[in-house]
Each structure stands twice: as C-alpha cells, then as structure tokens.
C-alpha cells in the first residue's frame, strides 16, 4: 500500500462542529465530528429523547445492521419497536464515542495540524467526561434541552454516570448497567495486557502502522482475546465449551486445540477487521482514567449532590469485571444524597456480557423503569 492514510472506509452519518472541544488533558481539538444514529421520532416538546451510550468496542449502530460487519445492531434486543427502549415511543440517539473509529473524531481522523494524515498516536488522551461533552454538543445541536433518559452498559454506564454528574438538569432518568464509578486496578491491569500486546506487534510501528499500509492485527487480536475472557464467566465458558476438543478425539499434535481456544481466536480475528488499534489504546485509557469521585474530593456522593435524576442501577451476579459490589457502592452514594434509586442485581451466569444478551428479567426491569419514569415525566 502507498502512503495514503487509512481514514475510516465507511461513510457514517455525522455532524462537524467548527468550535472543536477542550479536553480534560488541557489540549484542544480544533474540529469535532460526532457520528451518530437516531431511531424513532422526536416529539413536539422534544421531551422523549433517550441517549444510548456504547461500550468500549461498540458503536452507534445500536438497532440496525452494522454497515462494517453486516451484523445486527449490538443492542437490538433492547432498542427497537416494542422493545424495552421502545423506538415507537422514544427518540433514541446513539453516538460513536470520542476517540472511536466509526466516524467520530478519533485517532483515525485527520490531524488538526496535518489534515492529510491521521492523528494516530498523536491523538490526545481523552476521558469519559470528554466523551460526554462531545455527546452534549450533539444533543444541544439537535435542540434537546433535557434527555428523558441516558442508558448504557459497561463503559456506556460510566458515561451515564458522568452525564448525571455533569449535566444533572439535562438527565431525567439515568440507567448505568454493569458499570462502576471508577475503573479498578484489576481492570486497568487487563487493559494493560491488551495495550502491551498491541505495542509488541511488529506491525504496530509505534502507532504509525497506517503509514506502512499494515495493521497490528496479531496484537489487537490478543488484546481482544484477553478482554473477552473478562466479559464472560467461568460458568458460561464451562457450559459452552467445557474441555471439548476442536475436531479431534485427543490432543495428539501441537495443532490440536480445545474448542475454547478456537472460539477465542475467532473472537480476536473478527474484531481486528472492524476496530482500529489506536482507538483501542485511546478508549481503554479513557476507561482507566475514569474515577468519578476523584473530582469531588474522593466522595462519590458529592458528584450527585442535589440530583433530581431518577436512577436505575443494574448489575449481573456473575459479572466479575464490574461486580455487583461496585454497583452497590454507587447505590449507597446516591442514598447519601437521598436520590431516587432503583437497584437490581440480575441473576445470570453469563458474566459481564449479560447486558448484551438475552436476559428477560433485565429487559423487563428496564422496560418497567422507563415506563414508570415516563409517567413521572408526563410523557
């Protein structure tokens, strides 16, 4: 390949803001593009908007076929007509996060100073709060003063918490799912393995792989494989694969594999086709930096002082990446400011990924909470 930078190959619906965005790190993006998708219809009062926040490797294609992978929307079980987030009732917005690789400004976007080339590893460090500020700019642009609800799982749940803390008057209801108010040392450690795997790939070229016409696919795949283990539970892996072998009666040659190995390799290889390594580095770091209490003298409750937002907190019993104890800590912080909190732990053996999967109790709880809030909001 020649020197042509690998800007995003697919066109995404997006809006560009010439004012740019001041970042937590002190640097400034001169130009900010936010890619987004919407579903349903905004009502005349502009009061039925629901913002969905995606997780680390998610994107804005929440409830429709993904144009890059051809797969169904990542949350089409939850968002759609007559689904828990009912697009016949609500106007659903989902943006690609800042630092992402699906159209929003990120490492693959044109560099502010040398627009012919992408940012690559020069892209500034962004935070969850920065991602939320970028979303707020879009929401303002759409003429929406108050979101009826902000909903998201995992890193999406971190964004929900940041929304509720930063713009309490703009969030009627907040639903952080399988999330935490800070990224734990264990979670940072797993991210670091992924980042080291990418950096160790000979095709990484210190982040300038695009100038060489290659991608650090091996490293990114290993990063994904490690991360994927943290998204599932031991029970789920045992149920799915146990100690079964792949196309072999016994492990007689080095090439023979367990089914779980082949599954992980598939997870890794399908991921590298759709994700950018520098985006992965940028976004994992943003998650690591997240500590909502840190900006409030270490007291999480202070992040929510005086809040009138209605909260639904959901955790999953077998999630060891964002365990229930972390959600309970958020519930208790919200109690300290006498906030309106619903909190449910869903019993599931599917681990962290349960929030994306078929969990009828979770879906009923989410639907019921949103209906109850709609009644209180006069929708």
């Amino acid at each position, binding site marked *: 390949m020649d020197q042509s930078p690998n800007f995003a190959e697919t066109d995404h619906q997006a809006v560009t803001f010439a004012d740019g965005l001041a970042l937590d790190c002190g640097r400034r993006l001169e130009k900010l593009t936010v890619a987004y998708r919407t579903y349903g219809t905004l009502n005349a009062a502009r009061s039925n908007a629901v913002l969905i926040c995606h997780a680390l490797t998610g994107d804005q294609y929440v409830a429709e076929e993904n144009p890059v992978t051809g797969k169904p929307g990542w949350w089409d079980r939850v968002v759609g007509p007559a689904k828990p987030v009912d697009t016949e009732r609500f106007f659903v917005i989902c943006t690609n996060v800042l630092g992402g690789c699906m159209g929003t400004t990120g490492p693959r976007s044109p560099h502010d100073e040398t627009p012919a080339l992408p940012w690559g590893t020069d892209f500034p460090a962004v935070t969850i709060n920065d991602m939320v500020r970028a979303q707020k700019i879009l929401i303002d642009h759409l003429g929406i003063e108050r979101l009826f609800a902000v909903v998201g799982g995992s890193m999406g749940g971190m964004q929900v918490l940041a929304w509720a803390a930063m713009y309490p008057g703009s969030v009627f209801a907040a639903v952080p799912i399988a999330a935490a108010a800070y990224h734990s040392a264990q979670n940072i450690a797993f991210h670091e393995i992924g980042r080291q795997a990418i950096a160790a790939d000979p095709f990484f070229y210190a982040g300038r792989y695009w100038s060489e016409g290659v991608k650090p696919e091996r490293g990114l795949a290993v990063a994904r494989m490690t991360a994927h283990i943290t998204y599932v539970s031991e029970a789920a892996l045992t149920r799915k694969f146990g100690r079964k072998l792949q196309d072999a009666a016994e492990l007689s040659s080095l090439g023979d594999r367990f089914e779980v190995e082949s599954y992980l390799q598939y997870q890794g290889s399908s991921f590298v086709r759709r994700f950018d390594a520098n985006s992965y580095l940028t976004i994992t770091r943003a998650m690591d930096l997240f500590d909502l209490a840190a900006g409030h003298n270490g007291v999480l409750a202070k992040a929510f002082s005086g809040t009138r937002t*209605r909260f*639904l*907190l959901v955790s999953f019993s077998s999630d060891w990446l964002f365990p229930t104890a972390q959600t309970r800590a958020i*519930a*208790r912080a919200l*109690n*300290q*400011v*006498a906030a*309106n*909190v*619903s*909190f*449910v*732990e*869903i*019993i599931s053996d599917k681990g962290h990924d349960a929030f994306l999967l078929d969990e009828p*109790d979770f879906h*009923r*709880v989410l*639907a*019921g*909470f949103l*209906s*109850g*809030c709609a*009644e209180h909001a006069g929708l």
Partner: protein
Amino acid sequence: MDQLTRPRSMRVDLALIASMIAPGSRVLDIGCSDGALIDYLFRMQKCDARGLELDMAAVTQAVTHGLPVMQGDADTDLVTYPDGAFDYVVLSRTLQAVEKPREVLQQMLRIGTHAIVSFPNFGHWRLRLQLLMNGRMPMTKTWHRMWFETPNIHPCTIRDFFALCETDGYRVEEWLAADDEGARAPWRRSRSLANLFGEQGLFLLRKA
C-alpha cells in the same frame, strides 16, 4: 380506609399505614416487598415514595412495575441515607426479622421525621396459651415456621415495644392493635388488652 380508594390487592394493614401518611410526603418503605404500598402512596396520595427490599425477586418485580425500589438490607443500608431525608419511614411486619431491631429503629428516626412500625404481637393470648399448654414454641397463622427455620429472630410483644420506645425516647403519636387481616381491633384504650388480643401492633413514632 374507604374500600373505594384502596386497591383490591393491597393488604388491609398497608391501608392502615397509608392512612397515617400525609399526602405529598417523602416516604421510604423498608421491606416493601412488591411495592404495593409505595404504588398506592404515589397514585392516591401523590407521595414521593421509595422502597428498600432484601429479596431480589420482589425487587425485580417492583422495578418491573416502574416502582423506585432498591435491593438492600435494613440492617446495613439505612446508615447510608442522610438525616431527615424522609417524612415517614415505614417498616411493616419486618422489625422481628432484622438483625438489630433497636439500631434499625434508631436509623429510621434519624433519616425520617416519623417512623411507622408494624409487627406481629408475640403477646397474643393464643401464643401464650400454646406455650403454657404444650411447652413448645407456638405455631399460628402468623407464626407458622418452626423455630429453627423462622426468619423472625426478634419477636416482641406490644408492651415490649412500648418499653423500648420509652427507653429510647420515642414519642408514640398513634398506635393500634389489629387482627391478622389488619382490621383495627378495639383494644386501643388498654395496652394490656391490646397485648393479649391484638395479633399485630402498629405504631406511629417520632423523636420525643
């Protein structure tokens, strides 16, 4: 309470509790089960009513019905609420099942102006008679689990409860004894008669 305004499904004792709560108040219902009382208080009395419930299945059902209920434990979670967060804190038929009833009561009157407490009365004549005659732990409609499996680890009588209120300095603003179904029993004048014939006690307290 008027039968017309009470949802058919709500327990009579919950209706009695609702009648003690001023419209528009902030209420926390501890051990709210499926949230029948908070639903009623929101719909009929325009209260900002929330629930705390230990049993996850009940919490899931309540939230599914759009009610603000969080999973939690009276013994450990009340400490997280700020002083005076509620006008009323309700504990119905749960006091006898908590780990530390006295501390729970203290917390209720710290986070709420009023506490409303109902509990099955262990001083009822049928229980006394059974213990006297059989010499074994009584079994009745209300006390129907064997001693080794009952969640009701802190039974008390109506007179016991009056004594605790006095010791800890709580003013009893209103009290009554009721039968199993929650219908008001006519023993309000005499604590001793209420303690003998009332199947449950219901108290409205505030700090003296």
